[in-house]
């Protein structure tokens, strides 16, 4: 039996049926990482001792006939912006090189309390600033489908780890597309939840009013189960929602495709979209139609403003959120400085990656006296307009279907010198974060170069249950999500 191709449910059942042990599952993944990650470079830190220790505990529980958690025996690769107590958490930046946190993020603890096994911490753009994982202060991660290409970002390590089957699932964060875009580019499923659905506590903040914590896995069914364990109010996060958490995994057949109104926003199928992607995404829509759904042409006219709003508000919040990285209380720092201001400038100058500096500068500028009204305030107003447009559309349709990104994975290095071009890669994902809506990325085929691509299902606030159900039914009808890159042939 191939232990690295199982879903969470199957792993748990296999353990209970004594077909294999958790240690065997963990060892299998660790071997694979050992053998292949030098090519993919998904991991900043692999945690074999912890993984085996936790796996042994799960096996012990089973042998003693004790209850096991909902994620028992499945391994999790955790994006390095999530703090993990006692384990280096770098956020993909040199600013936190060697930083060992004193506490763990809430969502990580929740996942671990369901007997998941930590396999390692994965690479990302520093503090999640980026779309290709090339901004990482450590190294670039390679797309398992084509190692010369980017995995997407910023949760590129998470997506690559799942695609390469280095881990059953992964945790990621989505501030402007950082789960959905790498999921699509690596051919895995990813969920960006409603803002406030999951706690942000213990995850280094990017843009506080946009950040959401989610997961990536092979199947939507897995995502439903993981989200069920991750979501819910957290007394440590004032923006987390008290909305009750449905048992998503029990509701996968909840939505009937018959009569389901799926909106296709014309702005998301514009000229900017690669025709191959357009075709595959339309095929997915037509499959739904074939099974009884109605496709409705809709318009979200302010879509093009999404990028503008996003790249004003997000850097503004970033500029303040990054202020704590001053080299005084944690992280690496310079030894000698002539005065306080030099100390700040040398630390931040030396350890922050160029993209981090770029966003701090943009945000500082946008918030400056004399510019605040023209930028921050104006963008906040447009944010309200964008939210309202979605609300109006959800009067007419149940769910929106759109491509995740305008292109498939591009060659590493191709756009590194063109940050503006990189920013535009977020064009189909950012509006969802601006509005705070949930969105599920589902693989739906490959382009001519055998590079994966995907569509996203965007729902109204707190309708993750519907998204999972609609996405799951698609995966019952297709096998795109089951296809794996042929990594073993590399050597």
């Amino acid at each position, binding site marked *: 039996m191939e232990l690295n191709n199982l879903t969470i449910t199957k792993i748990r059942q296999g353990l209970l049926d004594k077909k294999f042990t958790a240690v065997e599952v963990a060892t299998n993944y660790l071997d694979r990482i050992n053998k292949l990650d030098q090519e993919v470079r998904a991991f900043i830190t692999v945690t074999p001792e912890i993984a085996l220790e936790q796996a042994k505990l799960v096996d012990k529980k089973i042998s003693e006939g004790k209850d096991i958690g909902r994620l028992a025996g499945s391994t999790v690769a955790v994006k390095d912006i999530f703090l993990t107590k006692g384990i280096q958490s770098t956020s993909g930046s040199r600013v936190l090189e060697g930083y060992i946190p*004193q506490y763990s993020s809430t969502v990580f603890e929740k996942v671990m309390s369901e007997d998941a096994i930590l396999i390692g911490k994965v690479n990302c753009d520093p503090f999640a600033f980026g779309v290709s994982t090339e901004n990482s202060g450590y190294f670039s991660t390679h797309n398992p489908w084509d190692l010369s290409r980017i995995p997407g970002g910023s949760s590129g390590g998470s997506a690559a780890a799942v695609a390469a089957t280095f881990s059953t699932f992964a945790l990621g964060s989505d501030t402007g597309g950082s789960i959905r875009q790498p999921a699509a580019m690596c051919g895995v499923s990813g969920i960006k939840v409603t803002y406030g659905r999951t706690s942000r506590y213990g995850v280094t903040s990017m843009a506080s009013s946009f950040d959401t914590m989610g997961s990536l896995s092979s199947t939507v069914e897995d995502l439903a189960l993981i989200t069920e364990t991750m979501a819910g109010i957290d007394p440590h996060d*004032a923006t987390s929602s008290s909305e009750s958490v449905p048992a998503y995994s029990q509701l996968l057949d909840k939505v009937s495709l018959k009569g389901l109104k799926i909106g296709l926003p014309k702005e998301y199928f514009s000229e900017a979209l690669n025709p191959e992607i357009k075709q595959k995404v339309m095929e997915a829509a037509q499959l739904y139609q074939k099974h009884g759904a109605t496709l409705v042409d809709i318009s979200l006219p302010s879509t093009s403003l999404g990028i503008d709003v996003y790249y004003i508000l997000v850097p503004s919040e970033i500029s*303040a959120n990054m202020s704590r990285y001053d080299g*005084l209380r944690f992280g690496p720092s310079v030894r000698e400085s002539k005065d306080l201001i030099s100390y700040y400038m040398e630390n931040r100058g030396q350890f922050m990656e160029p993209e981090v500096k770029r966003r701090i500068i943009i945000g500082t500028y946008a*918030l400056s006296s004399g510019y605040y009204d023209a930028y921050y305030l104006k963008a906040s107003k447009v944010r309200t307009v964008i939210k309202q447009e979605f609300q109006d559309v959800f009067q007419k349709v149940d769910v929106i279907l759109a491509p995740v990104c305008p292109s498939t994975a591009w060659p590493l290095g191709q756009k590194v010198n063109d940050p503006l071009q990189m920013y535009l890669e977020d064009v189909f994902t950012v509006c969802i974060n601006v509005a705070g809506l949930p969105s599920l990325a589902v693989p739906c085929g490959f382009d001519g170069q055998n590079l994966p691509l995907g569509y996203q299902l965007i729902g109204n606030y707190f309708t993750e249950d519907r998204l999972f159900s609609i996405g799951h039914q698609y995966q019952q009808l297709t096998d795109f999500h089951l296809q794996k890159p042929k990594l073993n042939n590399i050597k």
Partner: protein
Amino acid sequence: MTITPIIGIEAHIELKTKTKMFCGCDASHFHADPNTHTCPVCLGLPGALPVPNKTACEWCIKLGLALGCRVNHSSFFERKNYFYPDLPKGYQISQYLRPFTVDGILDLDGHKIRINRVHLEEDTGKSVHLGGDTLLDFNRSGVPLVEIVSEPDINSPEEAKKYLLKVQQVVRYLGISDADIEKGSMRCEPTINIKIEDGDQTFYTPLVEIKNVASLTGVMTAIQFEIDRQIAQFQEDKIVKNSTNKTTRGWDAEKQQTFLQREKEGSADYRYFPEPDIPPIEFTANDVEAVKSTLPEMPDQKIKRYINDFGLSDYDSNLICESIDSSEAFEYGISVFSTEKENIKKFANLYINGLKEHLNKENKEIEKEKINPEQVFKVIKMASGNVVSSSVAKNLIVQSYEFGVDVENYAKENNLIQVSDTIVIEEMAKKVITDNPKAVADYRKKPLSVGFLVGQLMKASKGSANPTLAKEILEKLLSQ
């Protein structure tokens, strides 16, 4: 030439909530071991998020209401961005565009000082400079801090003092802070400039904000220093206020002078923006009413009532209402004769000149529970009936308060019952005259000095002699 100082005051009050403003850490920090009351939130560690303290929000609103402010029904926190080692996040969570409460009034004996705002923020950590090193203590980081900003309606150092004492009194009445300037739980930063009217010309000198003043006397001295300095400066350079020449000056308590700390304050850019980690805070009319209903009777109202209902003097009423504990103890003391104006007045005298004086000497705070209203009433009856002298009455109030004695028994056992028997007093008077030949000689030259001899007689009688009779008899004997 007319010169008018224009003074506005920013006062910061540390709330004495159990926990800090945005985390569960113990908010007390006075004399605590450095960095023992800290957590990821108040240390500004990666990934930590602020969760507002509900009690602190309510207390801020309470204070705003007590100062006559209006509550903003929709309010939010903002980030004030600046770098300093004692500010771990690199921004302070404060309020800017939508403070919790605005537009209040503080009445200083008829002079109304407008309050611009009463808002909530977090305190910073403390930098301790030791030799060439700076040590950081984050125990104070994140302690709830209320900022009270007055309009520039204050015109003298004395008025500034009165204003601060009044703010302190209101805060202490609400029980939300010790508001102790020396311990730093109340801090004040006056901003001063001078209006100079010369014939038909009017000039305003540049604004100066004074920092680091650590005592009430310091505030007054600093303001006076700054008034004199600005007048002298203006005479020299004739520079007037504009939007960019506000400066910050520190107060050097040793040299008793202000010194320039920062120039061009006008150009500081804190890049305020709404705190995205905390959702906007809404207060419904009901919420505000609920807080209002918890407000105690405030000192101004209380003093008015004492004057009108009890017939007490303005001076006495102010003394009694100095603190809420003092007024509550007083009101408890009169509880068995609360409608008898004359007796209330008598108790006010015993309370101020007997009990409070005694406590002041001992440096103790009044404890309401130690007052026995029944005994108080007995003392007043004894004094009214001339059974004891007024000085004995004061003593009896103290004895009852400190040792719980029965005042009647105590007076009897200690021979404190007033002696009005002329024969007994005459005996004592004769002895006093014999024992004090020098005083007697003085009296012959200056009859007004009889007071000394009366005092000697009272002392000999342990205060039990009727002082009026004592004086009469002494004068009679001496004139013979």
